[in-house]
């Protein structure tokens, strides 16, 4: 049986100051799908995420998230959780870890109102889910890069989302941290019945964990299981150069690019 569709994009075009970022993108993401979105730098991955979030309006085409245009989700907006690229935040900002996580609930709490006891419980539970429950009182800037990232995940979880979007989550984290990160996502996905989209240019690691891969370079080249997508032919189309795959076990584990 086909699972319900969470994100639906039809013929989506986006350009910034005349520069094309997305070209006729069609994409359907099903409920509880774990999708890796790959493509070279500047291929429009972040733009695609921002379209789903409703932060960027397409010039043309239709976008529906949970059956509605993403900028008209209203009270259902907290169903989308977002963990941005290692961020533009001022890490010295005087804010505690638990306060940051609570910010994820502001959309649910509503304007002017204060967080209730239940909201604090949910925020603490989110911190627990990323194994950061002992750091609630610490200032954000005191944490390591990997810990800060887990706090950002906890913030996204605090809004009790059904769809979680990650933009380049592994940048600045070492390989071991990366593996921990993806197994954390798998656990969260199971426990909270999440649909997860991870945007990355790191094909090798992401393909060991996700169910499906989508290749983007302005337009969407393929969207299928990793083993189907990761053929030299399709990668050549996306990256515009020869990409050599060194197979290792069930799925390719290393990708070597030869630019000419």
């Amino acid at each position: 049986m086909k699972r319900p569709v969470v994100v639906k994009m039809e013929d989506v075009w986006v350009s910034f100051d005349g520069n094309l970022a997305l070209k006729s993108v069609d994409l359907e993401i099903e409920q509880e799908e774990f999708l890796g979105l790959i493509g070279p730098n500047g291929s429009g991955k972040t733009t695609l995420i921002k379209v789903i979030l409703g932060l960027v309006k397409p010039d043309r085409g239709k976008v529906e998230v949970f059956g509605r245009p993403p900028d008209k989700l209203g009270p259902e907006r907290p169903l989308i959780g977002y963990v941005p690229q290692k961020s533009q935040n001022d890490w010295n900002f005087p804010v505690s870890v638990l306060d940051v996580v609570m910010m994820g609930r502001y959309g649910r709490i509503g304007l002017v109102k204060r967080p209730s006891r239940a909201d604090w419980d949910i925020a603490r539970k989110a911190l627990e889910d990323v194994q950061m429950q002992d750091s609630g009182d610490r200032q954000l800037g005191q944490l390591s890069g990997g810990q800060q990232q887990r706090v950002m995940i906890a913030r996204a979880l605090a809004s009790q989302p059904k769809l979680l979007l990650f933009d380049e989550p592994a940048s600045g984290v070492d390989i071991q941290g990366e593996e921990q990160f993806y197994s954390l996502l798998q656990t969260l996905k199971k426990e909270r019945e999440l649909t997860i989209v991870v945007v990355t240019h790191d094909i090798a690691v992401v393909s060991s964990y996700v169910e499906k891969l989508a290749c983007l370079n302005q337009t969407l080249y393929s969207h299928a299981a990793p083993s189907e997508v990761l053929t030299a032919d399709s990668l050549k189309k996306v990256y515009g150069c020869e990409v050599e795959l060194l197979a290792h076990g069930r799925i390719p584990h290393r990708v070597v690019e030869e630019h000419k």
Partner: protein
Amino acid sequence: MIDILGYPFMQRALIAAVLVGIVCSVVGTYVVLKRLAFIGAGISHSAFGGVALGYLVGLSPIGVAIPFSLATAMAIGWVSRKGKMPEDTAIGIFFASAMALGVLFIGLREGYNVDLFGYLFGSILAVSVSDIWLILGLGLGVIAVVLLLFKEFFFLSFDEEMAAVSGLPTRTLYFVLLALMALTVIVSIKIVGIILVEALLVIPAAAAYQLTRNFVRMMLISVLIGLVSGVLGLFLSYWWDLASGATIVLTAAVIFFVCFLFSPRRRKRRVAAEQ
């Protein structure tokens, strides 16, 4: 010290200084954390155009400055959001023009004998009874809005993009914040002056930032520093016969340097540098 307070002008000046100390430090916390200092300078200098216009048409200068400052704040916000030109360029054009307009207005008024110096740098003699009611109303209004939208402004200052993702009306909140800055400038004009109010938007909050890693504590410490600077500066300006704005700002500046020298943030950096 008590006998000075026997003078009605001094009582009014004291009320104004206390209010200015509190309101500037509260709003200044956001100015410092959201890096709005230059926008603040733009808004405050533009108020001069409003004050001068009030003189020209024979209405209350402060009364005219209110809509004038709000309008400039919105215009600056709009230009900075549009991103068609660098924000600092836009602000530079705005505030120089508004000040030039002010000079023009004052020149147009025949036989001018305006206490220009007082408007620019503050004067303890300047606060009239009607001023008191106006700034009391505005000051309490600003604080009420901050208390109501406390968590929203908190998120907005920390991470505007994520605040938008969470569904907060960030655009509106940003403009409300600019409006609060404009009203803070109005509250401060008489006692601190147009040129110097910017300093009070930045210094107490910047000093508090040196001392704590907690947002609420930062705002409270900032208010305390603002209060002490306002009241102490006012008395010093009476004793030494100086412009009140200048003495209040310099008092705050001295406090800032003390906080900076003893900042745990700075000590920590020094230890890190030695290792």
